[in-house]
């Protein structure tokens, strides 16, 4: 189940999208998300969807992989859809006791569901094509102007990098501890809610102890390599904009114009 969530996962590749500067991708994604809220009719969504699938096509990330991520949030989408379908007043199409479906409700439901799907695919395409390290590097660069007013951009980026890096490590650790306690006859499946919560203690205590140990080791290893924060720090792979990013910028502007234009199309 946890493995099914593609949001935040990286899909290795060497496409044009993969090679783009992380900053370009972050800005493009943010812009895309904002534009999804600018859209006020289905024509706008058609443009947005076509643009998205063009990007997916260029990125060569299999569609199967993208839709697997969607299935994890299917419940949220379904819930939004049903809520909108039944809650909006207007011309009644179908009615059963207190439940009624209106024409406006139906169109609003589709509208919201499409928007949600595009938001999720749009943001997952960024994380799928960008290594977590590049992503946090890009974020650090983008936030660095704010360090003048006291925002610790380097530290924020470092924290994100460490958090992302240690998710698999802690998952492995959890798996090991669960197995070890199972070998001592621990039972995590039966009993009522209270008993089950209590049965987590043999997992959580060792997991906490391990996390502190790992954190301590990491801090020591960083100090041993003279890490002292962001000031004056250089990096092995300096990120810079190149021609691809310029092309992407032009595409973004054209797309923005198309989206704004779509607002004026009358149904």
């Amino acid at each position, binding site marked *: 189940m946890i493995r099914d969530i593609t949001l935040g996962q990286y899909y290795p590749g060497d496409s044009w999208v993969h090679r783009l500067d992380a900053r370009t991708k972050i800005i493009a994604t943010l812009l895309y998300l904002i534009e999804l809220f600018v859209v006020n009719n289905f024509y706008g969504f058609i443009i947005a969807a076509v643009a998205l699938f063009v990007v997916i096509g260029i990125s060569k990330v299999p569609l199967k992989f993208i839709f697997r991520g969607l299935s994890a949030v299917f419940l949220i989408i379904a819930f939004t859809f049903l809520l909108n379908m039944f809650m909006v007043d207007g011309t009644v199409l179908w009615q059963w006791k207190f439940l009624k479906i209106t024409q406006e409700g139906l169109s609003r439901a589709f509208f919201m569901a499409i928007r949600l799907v595009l938001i999720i695919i749009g943001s997952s395409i960024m994380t799928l094509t960008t290594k977590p390290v590049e992503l946090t590097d890009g974020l650090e660069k983008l936030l660095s102007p704010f360090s003048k007013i006291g925002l610790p951009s380097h530290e924020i980026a470092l924290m994100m990098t460490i958090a992302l890096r240690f998710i698999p490590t802690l998952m492995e650790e959890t798996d*090991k*501890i669960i*197995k*070890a*306690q*199972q*070998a*001592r*006859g*621990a*039972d995590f499946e039966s009993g009522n809610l209270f008993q089950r919560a209590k049965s987590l*203690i*043999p997992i959580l*205590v*060792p997991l906490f*102890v*391990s996390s502190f140990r790992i954190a301590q080791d990491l801090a020591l290893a960083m100090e041993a390599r003279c890490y002292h924060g962001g000031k004056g720090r250089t990096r092995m792979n300096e990120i810079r904009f190149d021609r691809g990013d310029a092309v992407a910028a032009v595409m973004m502007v054209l797309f923005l114009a198309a989206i704004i234009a779509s607002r004026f199309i009358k149904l």
Partner: protein
Amino acid sequence: MSISVRNLRYVYNPGMPGETVALDDVSFDVADGSILGIIGHTGSGKSTLLQHLNGLIAPTSGDVYIDGQCITDGSTKMVDIRRKVGLVFQYPEYQLFEETVQKDIGFGPKNLGLDEAEIDARVRESIRLVGLEYDDVKDRSPFEMSGGMKRRVAIAGVIAMNPKILILDEPTAGLDPSAHRDILAMVKRIHDEMGIILIFVSHNMADIAEMSDKVLVMSGGKVALEGTPAEVFSHGKMLADMGLGVPPAREIVEIINSRVPDFRSEALSIDEAAEDIKRYLEGPRG
């Protein structure tokens, strides 16, 4: 009590990009009361194999029989298997979680549904077996003990389940030489006193040669060699190719074998090597 493993096969992430065959057609037997030593390069499938023996992992295909009973056909209750087969993972001290040693060791017996008196008796017995004093340690927090002691407590936690088969995955990993010797002697004593089957994984060839009745060599998910220590360690070249080796004493006598024409020794331990050299020096020469 006996163990039979037949044609065991296990595949990680079947059908996914990361598909890996961890075990491939593994078969072997362990006789009652014997000690089986397992060696193999990192990633050769040792840990995966151990986890099959007490039902933590279900095989992709193949069977495991404990005492003639198949534990892989889905009909056996897991609690029954874990009561019989005790598994001590690598670095078991990282699984301690209770406030006191007594409570932590009592965790396993308590899960078996035993009454207070029986739990207490088992805790006392297992603390004795791992070479600690019940009155000294029972109320101490396991977290404030030394590494070697923590490991003893963790092993006691498995022994308290009163298993008929005890499996240890690298019981001496990361210990200093004196704790290493102590733990090994302790494991041997537990085996002798409880009269159980002992299975242990080690990267220390001298330990394997000294302790085991039978040695299993894993390589690439398959059983590469199987036999008594003398048989297995006579394949020095093959073991070296697998990234393994022979006990240090054997390495030395092999060098002497090749340089001194009329000297011949197949010693595995330092004592045996010393005996062979002594006999050669005292015997009629050239």
